[in-house]
């Protein structure tokens, strides 16, 4: 069992590049998770637009068709409804499909197959049929993708009973979480924050990107390991406040806290359904303050759920109102991308507000 146990991610340490350790970016980590999983279980099939010979527009499936053949890794028609629909049927047969939706913004034509079918198959058939699929999809902005290559629709899926939603923030986590998602017997939406495929994002778009290899979270063990769904990661530890974030925003929050000298428990939620409520409660009860950060639009965003949960469960421990920092309630703009993005100014001001009466 030792190989299946969770290992804690190494902490991020700037500039530490021990040469003996293998360092991967998030694309390579995801590719390796698929590779490791496919080698272990020949019921796993990978399909999607451009994922076969070409290896995916972000290269996440590179080399897999060569290794596992065209009937296990194949291109599909441009039909997300069809991609998810056939994945439901394949799951009913006994396969474990891992469809890729090229951008999360394209997932909507497949949403009926996800919400009305995959998510409810186990329930409506009293477990006669299940949908053990993992839908991988790059999401989030910060790459000048405009309104159709930048969205963060995680709250739509979190709202659906029967779906799990996973969002990794590091290469180490991406590999372990993806392996766990693929092995999960329920449908999982696996959103990959494409802004941090190549390196964590500080929130300063005008500074050069730091590649993953400069951070220890890029140390990815070879072979098989899994990170259980529903366990948050404490990215940094501190007792002034709790920051709840996932994906790209974990790194932006880290950078802003570091700059401002704020000592925060930054909880990288990793999965929003199931949610690690224990970790959230324990941290907020310790710090008494809570900031929620996500890139998605504000109204009915997942931050609203988090804010409600923290208020319901930790109210008497709170010393300041819960704050949310989010994207604005507009479509994702192209030229004004960085005005939309919940960057260092928005986060910094929220931190100041939450901490204003805190004696430093």
């Amino acid at each position, binding site marked *: 069992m030792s190989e299946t146990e969770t290992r804690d991610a190494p902490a991020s340490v700037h500039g530490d590049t021990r040469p003996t350790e293998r360092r991967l970016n998030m694309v390579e980590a995801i590719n390796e998770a698929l590779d490791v999983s496919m080698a272990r279980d020949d019921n796993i099939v990978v399909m999607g637009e451009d994922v076969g010979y070409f290896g995916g527009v972000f290269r996440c499936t590179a080399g897999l068709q060569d290794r596992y053949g065209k009937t296990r890794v194949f291109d599909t028609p441009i039909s997300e409804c069809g991609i998810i629909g056939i994945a439901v049927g394949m799951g009913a047969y006994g396969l474990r499909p891992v469809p890729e939706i090229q951008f999360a913004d394209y997932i909507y034509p497949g949403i009926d197959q996800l919400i*009305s079918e995959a998510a409810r198959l186990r329930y409506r058939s009293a477990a006669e049929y299940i949908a053990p699929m993992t839908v991988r999809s790059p999401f989030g902005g910060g790459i000048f993708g405009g309104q159709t290559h930048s969205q963060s629709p995680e709250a739509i899926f979190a709202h659906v009973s029967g779906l799990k939603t996973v969002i990794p923030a590091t290469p180490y986590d991406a590999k372990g979480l993806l392996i766990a998602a693929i092995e999960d017997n329920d449908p999982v939406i696996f959103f990959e924050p494409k802004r941090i495929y190549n390196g964590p994002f500080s929130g300063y778009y005008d500074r050069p990107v730091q590649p993953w290899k400069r951070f220890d979270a890029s140390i990815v063990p070879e072979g098989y390991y899994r990170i259980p769904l529903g366990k948050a990661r404490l990215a940094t530890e501190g007792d002034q406040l709790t920051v709840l974030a996932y994906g790209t925003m974990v790194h932006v929050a880290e950078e802003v806290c570091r700059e401002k000298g704020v000592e925060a428990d930054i909880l990288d939620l990793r999965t929003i359904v199931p949610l690690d409520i224990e970790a959230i409660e324990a941290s907020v009860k310790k710090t008494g303050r809570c900031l929620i950060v996500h890139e998605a639009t504000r109204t009915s965003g997942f931050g609203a759920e988090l804010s409600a949960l923290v208020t319901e469960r930790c109210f008497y421990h709170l010393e300041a109102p819960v704050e949310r920092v989010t994207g604005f309630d507009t479509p994702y703009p192209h030229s004004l991308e960085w005005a939309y993005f919940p960057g260092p100014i928005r986060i910094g001001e929220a931190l100041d507000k939450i901490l204003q009466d805190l004696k430093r």
Partner: protein
Amino acid sequence: MADRPEGTGRAGENRPALSLHVPEPKFRPGDTVDFSHIEVPEAGMQARPDETCDPKDMRELAYGLVRVLGEDNRAHGPWDPKLDPETLRAMLGHMAMTRAFDERMFRGQRQGKTSFYMKCTGEEATSVAASMALAGDDMVFPSYRQQGILIQRGYPLIEMINQIYSNKGDKLKGRQLPIMYSSREHSFFTISGNLATQTPQAVGWAMASAIKGDSRIAATWVGEGSTAEGDFHAACTFATVYNAPVILNIINNQWAISSFSGFAGAERTTFAARALGYGLAGLRVDGNDPLACYAAEQWAANRARANAGPTLIEFFTYRAEGHSTSDDPSGYRSAQEREEWPLGDPVMRLKRHLIELGEWDEERQEKMDLDAAEHVKKVTKEAEANGILGHGLHHPFRTMFEDVFEDLPWHLKEQAEQAIHERKTKFPEGLPNEGKGA
């Protein structure tokens, strides 16, 4: 009229005015029905190509009508499946049982024993005969009017009734609307209730079977109305792209609740002709001719098993009853349609064929119908012992929270506790039916 873009002035003012066509069925309530516009070719006249033929060499079959049983009650032509009398009698028996079951369940709904029911009267052949042409372990992805498949595959009636009553015997734990059956044991996929979603799923199952080098094929059923859904077109595309071993059965019963088939495009072409644009084999079949239904499904199954590709079949039939217990067809169509339907009734046609063969008679038919009704009545009583909808004999409260996920996460555990707390608040002495049901 909407404003034109500024600066275009009076350009185009002298062009003719456009008009929008909104389809209208030929007959509404009270109208005299005349179906003489429906072309009914003579039985036996349609060519039967080799199962492995190129779809472009069988174009005409997408516009014609494959028929076997003639006006003389005899089987004709190359599509005659040449079934032995025993098989024909079994087919008749399954169809009669389906009809008897529908009658009883419809009445049960009217008596308040359940919330909803849907009959398949007049369409029995499209499920029973088609299902008989498949192997028992071929996977079927039905819509909601294929109860004939379950009956043909020997699914116990009591399981169907338990499901319809959502009682404590319901294998699906009372979670699904009546008639949305599921039976993995009978290779029968869980019925959704959302329309056409099952069609790409069937293609995916068939692709999986092909990936694994299995020999089983998949078949799906969809109404002509819901072929308008994107899912159906995704299914056709994926089926043709991967040459999937799948059969796409379209049940063209003319009506989708109150919308006639014209709202799915029937005024312009046949549903079988959808196949042509995709490069699928397409067959248009007399859906009230059980032998033609069997023969077409068998042809498509042979084609799929030979790795020769998918087939789209349009079964041309008529929905003799309302859409469900929730609508009154006299409010939107002429009651004469049923009587005037030019393709007759599938049960009657098969009965007359068997009599013509000297393998059946009216007395045996009467006895069979009576036995079927008696059997359904007996099983209904047995099922009622497990409860009827709304009378307390349901599954325990906690089962409401099971199977959302494989494991119960914290938020569902909390909500399950709340539900049980509410029950105890309402029934401090225990449930009225405690010990029997919850």
